[in-house]
């Protein structure tokens, strides 16, 4: 009996090979596995320790934190953080009126809160629109001090929200909600018709709690954050549209998108900024003028859009043809196919290069200095001009670099988190 079953017997389960654990085993395996490796480890570790000791000595032990002027720092052999201390408000807020600088500070906090909330995946629905509407309103109210909301804008938003809500929810919403969307849409349309016909005059609702501060006086971190946040927030959907247009079946749309992308990618951002700043006003009819800040913002959006479009195109091309065919075979139309099947998958694939582009553009906003806008790096530069503190550029640039690093590293970590989060479940 036992012989008969021998051939068909299941092999006894074996234990997996033992794994060395613990710090010592790890060290031996990774750092001291051979003579050469041991030597390399010792030399590099020595170098690291020496650098760390030198930096701590310079940045902390011998550093000057409080001083009247740069004189106090000369000859100490340490960092002159007193300069940063003295110029902190100039570096962060530029030439924003001194007594009002609590406003850009709050604006920075409002934007950070808005961005942090946007990072949460559970917010990616109608909540996001509300967060951005409130966040943006608070930010710009604080920065400008006064905002005049055109009544027309309110009704345009009503029209768009009504139309969007109706189109998206038409299939699934209960009757009451559908009617609400239609009423919203109708109100917006009715106002616009009357406004265009001249029955209603244009009006604006003033919200003016603070002293007005024009964009020419803005500077520092709020400027960098506004340019980057709204630049990328607008460039992202716009870049997606460009990427979709580039793959369109309609030759005219395809040609326009390809032409635009190639044109924008073919010139440096600086030339685009200079064009927006100095050439555009020449083409506009007299009396019409755009704010310089707004022009720079538009230039950043156009530029970033072209790059984002190419990144997204990579994602679109990575989708297997079968996904498009399955969507087609089920009878989904182009918009449904794009919104539910194509973009969710394509954007997932391009998160790393997309965040890469975002980080690049966050830093590229520094180029607005060529048209005289004081972003964060530029105000840091301005702090060096004071002869009282001459001779300590290293400290200022190191500080500026540290602030930029905080932002960029956060984005990088977020990219990692997002990749993990979105791929949850889709992998075995």
């Amino acid at each position: 009996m036992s012989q008969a079953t021998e051939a068909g017997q299941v092999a006894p389960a074996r234990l997996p090979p033992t794994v060395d654990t613990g710090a010592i085993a790890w060290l031996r395996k990774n750092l001291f596995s051979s003579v050469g490796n041991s030597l390399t480890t010792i030399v590099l570790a020595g170098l690291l320790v020496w650098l760390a000791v030198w930096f701590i000595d310079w940045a902390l032990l011998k550093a000057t934190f409080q001083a009247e002027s740069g004189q106090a720092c000369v000859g100490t052999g340490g960092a002159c953080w007193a300069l940063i201390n003295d110029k902190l408000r100039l570096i962060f807020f530029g030439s924003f009126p001194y007594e009002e600088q609590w406003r850009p500070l709050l604006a920075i906090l409002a934007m950070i809160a808005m961005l942090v909330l946007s990072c949460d995946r559970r917010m990616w629905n109608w909540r996001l629109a509300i967060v951005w509407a409130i966040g943006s309103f608070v930010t710009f109210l604080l920065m400008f001090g006064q905002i005049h909301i055109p009544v027309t804008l309110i009704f345009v938003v009503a029209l768009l929200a009504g139309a969007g809500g109706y189109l998206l929810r038409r299939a699934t919403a209960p009757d009451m909600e559908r009617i609400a969307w239609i009423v919203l849409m109708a109100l917006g349309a009715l106002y616009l018709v009357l406004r265009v016909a001249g029955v209603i005059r244009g009006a604006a609702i003033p919200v003016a709690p603070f002293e007005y501060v024009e964009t020419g006086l803005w500077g520092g971190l709020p400027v960098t954050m506004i340019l980057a946040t709204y630049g990328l927030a607008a460039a992202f959907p716009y870049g997606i549209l460009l990427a979709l247009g580039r793959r369109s079946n309609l030759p005219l749309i395809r040609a326009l998108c390809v032409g635009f992308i190639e044109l924008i990618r073919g010139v440096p951002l600086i030339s685009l900024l200079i064009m927006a700043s100095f050439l555009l006003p020449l083409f506009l009819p007299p009396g019409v003028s755009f704010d310089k800040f707004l022009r720079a913002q538009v230039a950043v959006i156009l530029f970033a859009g072209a790059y984002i479009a190419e990144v997204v195109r990579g994602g679109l091309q990575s989708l297997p043809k079968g996904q498009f065919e399955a969507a087609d075979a089920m009878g989904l139309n182009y918009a449904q196919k794009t919104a539910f099947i194509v973009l969710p998958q394509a954007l997932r694939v391009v998160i790393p290069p997309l965040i890469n582009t975002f980080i690049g553009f966050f830093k590229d906003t520094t180029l607005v200095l060529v048209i005289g806008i004081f972003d964060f790096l530029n105000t840091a530069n301005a702090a060096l001009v004071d002869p009282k503190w001459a001779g300590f550029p290293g400290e200022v640039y190191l500080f500026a670099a540290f602030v930029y690093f905080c932002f960029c590293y956060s984005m990088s970590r977020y990219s990692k988190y997002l990749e993990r989060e979105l791929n949850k479940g889709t992998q075995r």
Partner: protein
Amino acid sequence: MAVRNLNSAPAVIELEQVNKWFGQFHVLTDINLLVKQSEKIVICGPSGSGKSTLIRCINRLEEHQAGTIAVRVDGQRIELTNDVKNIEAIRKEVGMVFQSFNLFPHLTILDNLTLAPIWVKKMPKKEAEAIAMSLLERVRIPEQALKYPGQLSGGQQQRVAIARALCMRPQIMLFDEPTSALDPEMVKEVLDVMIELANEGMTMLVVTHEMGFARSVADRVIFMDFGEIVEQAPPAEFFANPRNERTRLFLSQILHH
């Protein structure tokens, strides 16, 4: 299996003198085909013979360049033209199952099933989910509803793909080599579902090399080669007594390894 009287049934798919080229390559030549309601047709032939292209023309995944293709939708004959309305109307009535499943990897199984009913048929979500769950039970994997396609085996994925197509309540099902990408031990579970579907009276066009399936289920077997329909006959006659030399050669190649 009950003998069906197909002669009295109306034609649900009509192909007349259909021609298609891929560049210079003549992939479909003068295809004429009438498919009756509830008819099951198995299409076989060597690779590159145009069999997949033929069924992909019926729901416009491929565009034919000459001839007419018409599908009966709600008693009305709708001709496949460049009119998007016609294409969408036909796609609502025609379900398709692919060789490589083509499930949407970023959606759960349940969402894969309910997407089209909700958005194309404007069905309330609750109703779509109820239908989806009953179909998942029919293909015997209701417990996988909240998983993602990547967590399922090939056979399970293909059964989900069949359920997904059925969720639109189609009158006609196209199968493009549904078992070719499966491991051998999973072929049967998919074929079983297809046989059940056939017994319920679904009109089916199946491109496959599963000759056992053709023998037991098909009303008609079509052999294609070089873009032409070379021979068509009921399975008993087709396998016992193939008339064309090319058919005999093909059958000898796939039946005797």
